[in-house]
């Protein structure tokens, strides 16, 4: 522990660069594996062709179509969602000064899930009357709306006398999650088997629905929220001292709380609406970074974004290949890799402290 603390600021870029290199390698692997295997060399060339390099190089047309219409949007979406989930978890943990917080706490995921199941069960007949472009992303829009609504409630109810009371916020978050859980149960009670399986599949997360159209809408929102949260690293460090101390040190705590919660809700809401509920990334990645490297948020925030992207991408590769041609739900994979690794890490950290 003491040794880890000695890693000073100048090592931070090194850690981030290392993660970035791993992401590039994993991206290439992810692009090449699947039902149609594309050799790494071809995958690299097609990727470079997209940014205008090697345009004279001949490559198999099938490879190019598979890459550009299926795999590339999926990989990009996976990276963006992983980064958004990782950094939202890290910044909410920093904001609440509690390493056990995960993005679901502010009600986003619960609200989304409740809205989606209600829409699946009661709204499917209504949805067919909607214009096609809305119908195609009906679930996404409903999920996003439900997530925002729940977060708005949690946030609104926890403001007392113009100040956001974090303890109240956590309690209301728990209550809202219980309520959305009840709504989900109620909807499932009235659902037929088909609807239940649609919902179950959605809850476990699915990255397979990635298209360039969806990305065009979602990517800017994910990028804005992820990059926006990175600007809060210093402020969150000061907030680690406690809200009163942060105020004494010149932080406008109220503004910071609302902005961070808004950006995190945006990031998670968009992610959930694209790929369903993907648990664990937001909780585990910031923890890994803190345990392995350092608790300084100017490292934890960017590294959680990079680490989240990496972990989700690796999970996606596994989910696509392990039971090919079927796909395991992504949420199952993230938890299956994440949980044991996490337990091992905590166990090691505990042993070290005891020595």
């Amino acid at each position, binding site marked *: *522990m*003491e040794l880890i*603390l*000695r890693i000073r600021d100048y090592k931070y870029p090194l850690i981030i660069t290392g993660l970035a290199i791993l992401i590039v390698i994993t991206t290439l692997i992810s692009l090449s594996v699947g039902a149609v295997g594309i050799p790494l060399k071809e995958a690299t060339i097609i990727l470079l062709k997209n940014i205008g390099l090697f345009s004279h190089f001949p490559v198999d047309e099938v490879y190019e179509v598979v890459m550009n219409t299926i795999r590339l949007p999926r990989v990009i979406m996976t990276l963006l969602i992983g980064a958004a989930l990782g950094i939202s978890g890290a910044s909410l943990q920093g904001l609440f*000064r*509690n*390493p056990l917080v995960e993005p679901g706490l502010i009600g986003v995921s619960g609200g989304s899930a409740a809205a989606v199941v209600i829409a699946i069960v009661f709204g499917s007949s209504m949805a067919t009357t909607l214009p096609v472009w809305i119908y195609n992303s009906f679930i996404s829009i409903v999920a996003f709306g439900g997530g925002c609504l729940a977060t708005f409630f949690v946030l609104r109810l926890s403001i007392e*006398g113009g100040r956001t009371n974090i303890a109240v916020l956590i309690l209301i978050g728990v209550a809202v999650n219980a309520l959305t859980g009840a709504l989900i149960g109620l909807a499932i009670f009235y659902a037929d088997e088909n609807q239940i399986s649609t919902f179950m599949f959605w809850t476990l997360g699915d990255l397979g629905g990635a298209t360039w159209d969806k990305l065009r809408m979602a990517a800017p929102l994910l990028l804005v929220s992820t990059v926006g949260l990175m600007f809060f690293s*210093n*402020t969150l*460090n*000061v907030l*680690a*001292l*406690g809200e*009163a*101390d942060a*105020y*004494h*040190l*010149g*932080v*406008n*705590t109220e503004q910071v709380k609302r902005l961070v919660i808004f950006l995190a809700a945006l990031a998670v809401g968009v992610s959930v609406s694209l790929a369903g509920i993907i648990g664990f990334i937001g909780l585990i990645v910031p923890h890994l970074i*803190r345990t392995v490297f*350092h*608790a*300084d948020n100017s490292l934890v925030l960017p590294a959680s974004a990079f680490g989240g992207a990496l972990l989700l991408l690796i999970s996606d590769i596994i989910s696509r290949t392990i039971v090919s041609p079927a796909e395991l739900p992504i949420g199952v994979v993230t938890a299956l890799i994440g949980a044991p690794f996490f337990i091992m890490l905590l166990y090691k950290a505990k042993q070290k402290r005891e020595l």
Partner: protein
Amino acid sequence: MYEAIDISLKAGERFIVKNVNLAITPGTFLAVVGPNGAGKSSLLKVLSHEQQRYSGSVQVNGMAIRSYTPKSLSLIRAVMPQHSYLQFAFSVEQVIRLARQAHRSAKAVNDLIVEEVLEVTGMQKFRDRNYLTLSGGEQQRVQLARVLAQVWEETVYPRYILLDEPTSNMDIAQQQFMFNLVKNICPRNIGVMAIVHDVNLAIQYADNICMMRNGEVIDSGKSFDVFTKTNIEKTFCCKVNIYHDPCNNCPFVIPEAEISSMPKIAINK
């Protein structure tokens, strides 16, 4: 000057602080003493502007405290709380560096300030230690170093430090070290207010005393004038004897031991 003018603070119908007037003069050390629940910490929260729902006014360097932004206020006054809520494994140096967050000074300036406060608080050896693994007294020293770093630079305007029981976890040697340090930084155009539990520490180091009970100021003024037998007995509800300490050339207060049997428990069976 850091002035509290006719401050009252209520919790429901009960006054926690009632019509309190108080001034911190740059270059001097003001100790606030009083029994538990006298409203000392609440008054400090009003002065630091953490608690904003009070009546009366607080003036900082001639301007109403409400007209400052959190950032501009943080350049003038630093606060050391009673408890620290840090949960993450920050190093001592990092904790101190957080104090420089609002100042837009060059890295070299910040580095120098961090070195200086580490030196004056004697925490150089601890700089890379995990804050969470320090003892209570050591943590308080780090917190003081952080508070000092916030207002360390010489400026044209006076700065202020508000301390809430800064030595509550310290042994007697550390207590003397801390109060001596606090007293020695006053000449840097800094006004200090500290809530102090140990009456004798307050007598040894404070220039001015404010004695509080039940939210009201009982007496305030020069240290030796305020610490009279009647004042102390009235404020603390405790019999004391005051002697002269020839070594420090100041009075010292010793409470009379209360050796009696336990009060009878009167419960009707």
